[in-house]
């Protein structure tokens, strides 16, 4: 086993501190008994967590974010899985272009996407509606599902499907009984990743919400730009815990290593 030297260990320690420090202070600040931001907190108080309950705006926003995440991730999965099957195995003209199109939301600056959606939705007078949000989110999160499902499709042994066909299965049966079960980890992993992405999305969403459809990140953002109080810290702490919970679920379903590092992760 090759070992890291002292320099590497110190570097690594400082780096880990750098990565966790912002999260640690957010969580620490949330427990302050005082009315202002202080770290480390002078005592341990759940006062600011209770305060969340007194702010229905935030709770409503959290519900909207949850619903938006579930609906748009499901919609995007329904669109992305067949598309990934087509791209992952077909050799047809336009395949590369199609893949580039479906992955393009990752490369187009999000602020450009935001104003484009705003312009489009307001022309049809559906800006700020939940339907508008769902459609836009579905587009933004499709690349995440597509990439994971594509990776699963690439790892699929095609002779399994041929074997099923030779045994008399119809196309639909092959998909339902052979293909889908084999790519399911990618599909489920993609759905959860898409949900998290939608749940956290700010830059696009900030352009296309109205007061009645404001999502949690947007509500949090506009609160922070006006004032930073322990309330945003306690809400953020809940968001962190919720995300960590989803990460555990993802790890169980798909493997965090594999999700983040790709198929080759050891």
């Amino acid at each position, binding site marked *: 086993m090759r070992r890291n030297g002292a320099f590497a260990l110190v570097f*690594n320690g400082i780096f880990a501190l750098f990565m966790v420090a*912002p999260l640690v*202070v957010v969580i620490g600040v949330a427990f302050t008994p005082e009315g202002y*931001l202080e770290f480390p907190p002078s005592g341990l108080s759940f006062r600011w967590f209770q305060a969340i309950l007194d702010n229905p705006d935030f709770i409503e926003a959290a519900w909207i974010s949850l619903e938006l995440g579930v609906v748009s991730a499901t919609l995007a999965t329904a669109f992305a899985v067949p598309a990934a099957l087509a791209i992952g195995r077909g050799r047809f003209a336009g395949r590369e272009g199609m893949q580039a199109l479906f992955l393009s939301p990752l490369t187009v600056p999000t602020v450009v996407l935001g104003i*484009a959606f*705003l312009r489009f939705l307001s022309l049809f007078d559906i800006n700020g509606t939940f339907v508008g949000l769902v459609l836009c989110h579905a*587009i933004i999160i499709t690349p995440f599902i597509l990439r994971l499902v594509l990776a699963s499709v690439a790892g699929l042994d095609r002779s399994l499907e041929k074997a099923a066909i030779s045994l008399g299965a119809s196309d639909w049966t092959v998909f339902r009984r052979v293909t889908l079960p084999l790519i399911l980890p990618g599909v489920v992993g993609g759905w959860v990743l898409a949900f998290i992405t939608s749940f956290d999305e700010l830059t696009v969403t900030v352009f296309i919400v109205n007061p009645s459809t404001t999502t949690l990140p947007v509500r949090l953002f506009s609160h922070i730009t006006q004032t930073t109080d322990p309330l945003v810290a306690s809400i953020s702490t809940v968001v962190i815990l919720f995300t960590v919970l989803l990460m555990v679920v993802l790890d169980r379903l798909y493997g965090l290593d594999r999700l983040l590092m790709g198929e080759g992760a050891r």
Partner: protein
Amino acid sequence: MSVFSSSAARPWLLSGPALALFASLLVTPIVMTVLLSFREFSFYGGISDTLGLSNYIEILGDGYFYEIFLRTFLIALGTTVLCVLLGVPEAYFIHRMGPLWRSMMLLVVLGPLLISVVVRTLGWAILLGNKGVINDLLTRMELIERPLKMMYTSGGIVLALTHVMIPFMILAVWASLQRQDPDSERAAESLGAGPVTVFLRVVLPQCVPGILSGSLIVFSLSASAFATPAILGGRRVKVVSTTVYDEFLNTLNWPLGAAIAVLLLVSIMTIMVAWTRLVERRHGEALQ
């Protein structure tokens, strides 16, 4: 069914719904935004129907916008450089760890990727403020007398953006480390190379494609980042995306905002294409 399975139409049928969604809700809006950027705007008449270059002339003729674009790209560049300097060694160190430590560090390094950028930036706001954690700590250690100004500075934005972007760099470098033959380090060692030489002469050159693709991702995401500069820079340190936001939601001059956004899109795309060309020319033959 078998008619379909061999049919050339099959892939188009499968991706039809997604194509319809992307064509109507992605391609069309972007084209409309580009068109919008050529329209004129007046505070009394609103958006005109005539097309013209007035918005671009306004942007390119105004030093204020130059400054914003320059600042945006300098912040992106600074973030990219920091990500390379910190991310490459860190990826290598993690690569060399035992399996247990490696999984733990990967979680620490990559986990934040899934946590809301707003939340992470809030953490940096608490750390960097004039009465923030860092200033508080330094004052108590009597290293400084007056608080360092870190909020509402480009430096603070670069630091927080590095935190947000560095997982992408580590992922890219990690991918190229994984492709390396672990024996190539041993081979160099057996030929007399010390740890620093092994890293600089054998590991680093093989990581170059990863570093270059990681840099591209970090640079383009930093140049279009919104939440972090908006929270840490506010109105005082404006970047392109926060300027677009203001034009659209405060000034309500949509055509001008669209023109700024189109310029951002075009410049990022240009840099990406140029960078990829450069990389392919220099490393296309030697690697892959």
